[in-house]
């Protein structure tokens, strides 16, 4: 690490301020521009698309490579349970349990 405390404080402040500005951008625009119901529906779909991409990335990749078998297997288990109407907290606990069990069996 080649950074002193003052530099670190500035970097953290810029990251925090920038992240807040990014979070504020949506509500800021929505308060000033009247969108048609069609566009509002499209904006909700856009968020769902980004979340779906986030699921794919976090379930299947690790760094720039493949995440291995255990994590995707857990996520698929959770997804199947959710599609069959299992309670939400059962879904997420089952996903973690499946992945943990596979890792216990030395499956990465």
């Amino acid at each position, binding site marked *: *690490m080649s*950074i002193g405390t003052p530099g*670190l404080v*500035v*970097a*953290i402040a810029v*990251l*925090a301020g*920038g*992240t*807040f500005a*990014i*979070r*504020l*951008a*949506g*509500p*800021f*625009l*929505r308060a000033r521009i009247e969108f048609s119901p069609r566009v509002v529906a*499209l*904006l*909700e*779909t*856009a*968020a*769902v*698309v*980004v*979340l*779906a*991409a*986030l*699921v794919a*990335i*976090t379930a*299947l*990749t690790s760094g*720039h490579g493949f995440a291995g078998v*255990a*994590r995707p*297997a*857990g*996520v698929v288990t*959770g*997804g199947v*349970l*959710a599609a069959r109407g299992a*309670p*939400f*907290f059962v*879904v*997420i*606990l089952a*996903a*973690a349990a*499946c*992945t*943990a069990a596979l*890792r216990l069996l030395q499956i990465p």
Partner: protein
Amino acid sequence: MWRTLDRDLVRGVAVICLSVAVIGASYGAVAVTSGFPIWVPAVTAVVVLAGSSEFLFVGILAAGGSPVAAVLAGLLVNARHITYGLAVSDVVGSGWRKIAGTHLMNDESVVLALSQPDPARRRAAYWLCGAGILLCWPAGALAGALAGGALRNPDALGLDAMFPAAILALILPALRQPGPRYAAIAGAAIALATAPFLPPGLPELLALGGLALTVRRRVAA
């Protein structure tokens, strides 16, 4: 206002927050064992409140990268919040509340809000989850920083599968409609195909290209 939420969802939020605390502990431990003072994970957890960007920020600095690179990489990872804010601007509140409501915006609070059927429950789910994460993420980070190396690997508990599974479960109802479903599948495919070559955060934004499918379908219909 929590009473409007069904009990299963509240239990789910509690489990999510617990898992966030454990991952926060691994963040605190990683930061301290890479040479940062304890206040760094504790303060970033409160003021940034966006886990993956904090891991990346600390990781780049620890590897000798420049502060500018670390900040830009963190902001790129957080850029997806622009789409979140556009979709759930109704739940962040107004006046002074808007500042808190905006800061509570994260993957989990947004996906919970989107999964709710009416405005009152949208707002309740968003604030409950957002506040829970605001408590649990920094508390976990501080605990991990104090405990040092003891908590470095939460993967053994399978917690890394919990986050994508939770989000998947909550977007499933939206994916029952063909338009969003095709857009989401195309978007996920774009993100996966580009992930090996691009910096973190960018593939999720390129996934928005999947929206072209729904727009074309609407024009055709």
